[in-house]
């Protein structure tokens, strides 16, 4: 899995995740987000257009970060998921807890 900071717009960091978020790789995701949160970032858009796969470990990591950000009055939006990833969010009910947008641009607009 690769985690790339693709940019910052409207005060939100755009983070691109490439590959798989599973039990092995999800801790790296949490660590990376924690580092940015420690640097006082609290608005994030996760570009998931290159995310091939997510398991409950990945969902759990996103939830942990989302709860942290909520406590800091921050927000995280997810964008660009493929159908197979979207299905996992739907089955688990995560699609109603974390805001999901079709594109990064649509998510960024929420921060205006």
């Amino acid at each position, binding site marked *: 899995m690769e985690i790339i900071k693709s940019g910052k717009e409207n005060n939100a960091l755009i983070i691109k995740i490439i590959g798989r978020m599973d*039990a092995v790789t999800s801790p790296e995701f949490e660590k990376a987000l924690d580092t940015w949160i420690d640097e006082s970032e609290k608005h994030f858009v996760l570009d998931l257009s290159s995310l091939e796969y997510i*398991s*409950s470990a990945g969902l*759990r990591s996103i939830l942990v970060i989302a709860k942290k950000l909520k406590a800091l009055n921050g927000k995280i939006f997810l964008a660009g998921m493929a159908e*197979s990833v979207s299905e*996992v969010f739907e089955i*688990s009910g995560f699609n109603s*807890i974390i805001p999901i947008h079709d594109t990064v641009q649509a998510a960024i607009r929420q921060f205006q």
Partner: protein
Amino acid sequence: MSSIQLPAKIENMGLLVQFISDIARKIGFSGKRVKEIELATEEALVNIINYAYPDHSGDIRVTCTQDPSKAFVIKIEDTGIAFDILSLKDPDISAGISDREVGGLGVFLIRKLMDKVQYHRKNKKNILKLVVHIPTK
């Protein structure tokens, strides 16, 4: 029938999942179904890796078979503590972000994605079977 047996460590999770998905691909499941099989498999394996062997290390044995009724059967065995993964309660999937709990999702996903899930304990082994129907062409 194909089998693999490896120590129940997170470093081996990828190999075990790959073993199963390679067979699933060969059987001809769609890309989407293979991903679902990988996911259910990962959830089952991670539970064993995290909880089956609290005091000492142990193995996971995975056996894949195709039964005459056109089903792909993934048998996952461990010799760890007695644990019926199917006895876990479903998470509250309607809970909002503050109330949503972090655990319990893995088994729920297994049940949702697999056509049949069976657990039994025999000879001090936990035996979990994930069954995937093979669609007729």
